[in-house]
């Protein structure tokens, strides 16, 4: 009888039935709290019985499914695990970009003989500039000597007949978006020799982030279609196994939503189980990776710190996985019910 129903109408019927059921349950509950007499209490009992029946029938369906359930759940788990990895990577790259962006500086090297202090006010007047710091050539030379080993090559100054470095301005821009434009403008100031910033690294990271997102999207779409097909087939087989029951239910006056709601819930159950397993898997993988990086040199440890998800992000990830899983489960079972019941 549902095979003639278009998909959107079936979806509408399901959601409308659920909505009506909740509204009636809430109304019964509120009336009960206000101390209404027995009939409403009975109505509330009726709702609880209906919920109990739906859950029992859903459980029965899952029992009948046997190993088929695992086919559906494992497909959803793989899908959601990959979706989670994609999402997590995207968040981590985004975080890395933000951290780099907040430290982003433009190094402005002046021409030999030009004093950095003389150019500082002109540079500070640019609206995109947040801060300007002068690094004299003496400071730079001292830093260089320190990095190169200090006293051992102290004679180098004499050998080179003085400090060969130029003065430098460390410019911090207000936002990452204006860095290339600001760098170009700074380069045009008279007395500026060259300008350097982390443009290349940022572009690579942005490209990587976009690439991960695009590949992730394609993978998620393909796997979603696969998961819907597997769930739909599983539910359909369970529906076929219970065809006689469904026929009798129709003959004894069970409404359409009453018959197919347990199957829809079953599909949602697949999604929620898959989502939970995928989330546990992701958390375990992250923890293992962090442990592994913790035993590595400092640079990799630093990378590990950047890869760690915030607690709020972990919760958000779980909610997203459960949401996507239940949606896919619901769509899969709706397809099956529309075809089979």
């Amino acid at each position: 009888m549902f095979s003639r129903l278009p998909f959107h109408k079936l979806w509408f019927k399901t959601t409308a039935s659920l909505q009506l059921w909740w509204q009636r349950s809430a109304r019964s509950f509120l009336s009960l709290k206000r101390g209404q007499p027995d009939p409403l209490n009975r109505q509330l009992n009726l709702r609880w019985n209906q919920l109990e029946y739906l859950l029992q029938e859903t459980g029965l369906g899952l029992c009948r499914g046997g190993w088929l359930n695992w086919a559906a759940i494992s497909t959803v788990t793989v899908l959601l695990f990959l979706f989670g990895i994609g999402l997590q990577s995207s968040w981590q790259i985004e975080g890395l970009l933000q951290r780099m962006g907040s430290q982003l500086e433009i190094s402005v090297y002046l021409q030999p003989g030009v004093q950095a202090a003389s150019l500082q006010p002109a540079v500070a007047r640019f609206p995109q500039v947040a801060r300007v710091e002068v690094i004299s050539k003496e400071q730079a030379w001292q830093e260089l000597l320190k990095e190169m080993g200090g006293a051992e090559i102290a004679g180098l100054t004499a050998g080179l007949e003085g400090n060969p470095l130029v003065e430098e301005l460390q410019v911090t821009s207000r936002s990452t978006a204006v860095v290339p434009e600001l760098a170009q403008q700074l380069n045009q100031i008279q007395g500026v020799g060259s300008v350097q910033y982390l443009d290349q690294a940022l572009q690579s990271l942005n490209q990587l982030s976009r690439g991960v997102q695009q590949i992730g999207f394609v993978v998620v779409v393909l796997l979603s279609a696969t998961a819907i097909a597997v769930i739909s087939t599983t539910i359909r087989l369970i529906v076929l196994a219970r065809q006689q029951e469904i026929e009798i239910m129709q003959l004894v006056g069970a409404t359409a939503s009453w018959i197919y709601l347990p199957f829809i819930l079953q599909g949602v159950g697949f999604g929620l189980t898959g989502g939970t397993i995928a989330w546990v898997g992701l958390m375990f993988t992250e923890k293992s990776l962090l442990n592994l990086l913790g035993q590595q040199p400092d640079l990799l440890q630093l990378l590990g710190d950047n890869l760690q998800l915030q607690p709020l992000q972990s919760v958000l990830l779980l909610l997203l996985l459960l949401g996507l899983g239940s949606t896919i489960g619901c769509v899969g079972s709706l397809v099956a019910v529309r075809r089979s019941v």
Partner: protein
Amino acid sequence: MEPKPDSPHRSSLVQFRGVSKSYAQQFSLRDINLQVKRGDFWFITGPSGSGKSTLMKLIYGAERPDHGSVLVEGIEVNQLRGDRLAYLRRRLGIVFQDYKLLSRRTIAENAAFVLRAQGIPRAEIDRRLTPALKLVGLIDKAHAFPDQLSGGEQQRASIARAIIASPTLLLADEPTGNLDRDNAQQVLKILTQLNAAGITVLVTTHDRQLIQSTQFPVIHLNQGQVRIERTGGKHVQ
């Protein structure tokens, strides 16, 4: 049909108004006009393929007429769809020749299934279950599975399922078709008791002996036409 002598104002429960139904261009029912009143008991008989089951299916909305209309409790069944049809079916009890019991559920669960499928609370189901099983004599076999029962017992279980929701109309499609004489008589006795309790009963059957054993009126179907074969001494003047 004419009213019972003892209750002249009985309203009609089922009405066929100029109903025709054909399968593959062959008439199963042709321009049928019928009226069944509340409290009636009718046998519907005729050769195989004469439209007995079609007549039943038209009443519970599993088939729709090509022409005409079927009314149950004044509601035109062929206009009902989806949930409205489901609500009408809740007021009917249906018994099938092949029992249609769920093999993985006990007799009590099978009988209760109708109420469960309608969302009735468990306490209410328990309250109705015992009298229904007592009436068909299966209270001791409530927890047995259908394959542990004889054909007659299975049919009685299906009657319990049909009456548990207190229907106004009981439709029994060849209820004794798979049963021996004794079991058939037992089933008929139960149906007669239900009718005496006020339930309108329609029974399709091939079994002339079964029909002869009672005084109930008979509708004879042949080549899509209806003939009232016996108006019966008990319910019809």
